[in-house]
């Protein structure tokens, strides 16, 4: 194998290792994602409009986080945050939109 080929292989291996490390979620990533989701869900609670699916997705994130599966934990926490934000949007937009459905 030529020196040039070896250099290419070495560079590729290095790149793959770096990329994998960058993709794998850490405990810190999980904690940050979970905190963001929890904050959004608390806001939905203040609007009296939490969703059961946000709660169950948050619970799934916590379970994965406690088991050390941080990739799943981050994915679940992000999903929970998206659900909580959707419930906030719903509560906010319904402040006026409910009138469209009223029997008059």
């Amino acid at each position, binding site marked *: 194998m030529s020196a040039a080929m070896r250099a290419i292989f070495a560079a590729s291996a290095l790149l793959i290792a770096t990329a994998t490390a960058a993709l794998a979620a850490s405990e810190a990533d999980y904690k940050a994602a979970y905190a963001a989701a929890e904050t959004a869900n608390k806001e939905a609670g203040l609007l009296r409009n939490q969703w059961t699916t946000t709660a169950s997705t948050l619970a799934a994130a916590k379970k994965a986080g406690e088991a050390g599966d941080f990739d799943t934990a981050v994915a679940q926490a992000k999903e929970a945050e998206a659900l909580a934000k959707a419930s906030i949007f719903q509560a906010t937009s319904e402040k006026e939109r*409910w009138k469209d459905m009223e029997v008059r």
Partner: protein
Amino acid sequence: MTRRLAIRAAFAAFALGMLAYVPARAAESIDPAADKAAFQKFFTSKFPKLKLEDFVNGPYSMNEDLHKQWEEKEQFPPYEFSLEAGKEMFATPFKNGKTYADCFPNQGIGIRQNYPYFDEKEGKVVTLELALNRCREANGEAPFSYVKDDMAALTAYMAFTSRGKPMDIKIPNDPRALEAYQKGKEYFYTRRGQLNFSCATCHIQSPGQRIRAEVLAPALGILNAMPIYRSEWSGMGTTSRRFTTCNSQIRGVPLNPQDDEYRNLEYYLSYVSNGLPISGPGARP
């Protein structure tokens, strides 16, 4: 200069006056009597063959086959045990010797149609379930769960003593009562939960239609039949149970039973069913 100041002051006063006028107009636009008329007309137009008083029979008024099943079921109604238990509980004295009858007008007999009412002292809506637990607590007894058997039994008995009496909810001339009514209406029509349903989605837009195996009940008269024995629950359920399970079925986190929102919702829904007879306790699929 003085003239300019006077003009500015006049403008400011006018603007302030307009600001005060806007909320006053908003409050004026709350018209429960007009709401009730429109609400009842909506249902009688949608189901022209039904008599007004039939709406209290929920899904059984919407479907002929179900109606036949219900007539047979009423020979040996599934709520009968609860009704008997409620009658006994109602008559049994508390440890201090007093009874439920001591807490209510007319000794608690034939008064279901007047609940919920707006308590002007408290400034809030008081439901029958709430009044029963307050009665217990005032007499040194622990409150019952709002969603379970004991509360259902007591309200079943009280409803039974009012059977046939028209719902008669009053809205006193008090802005707080009107606000409670309006908030109840808003809750009824507001979409919530991941399924994005409001109470009206099922009970205004779709009564008589099926949601999976269930035939949806009309909102008109829906509370006149409470509490109910539901085959789906294999037991009795109160109005509180109905509200909280409705919320969780649409993937919304239910509020606590007897939170202000639910009390206001019961006030609104009962008021728009004024004139329809009390039919509780009821039975539902």
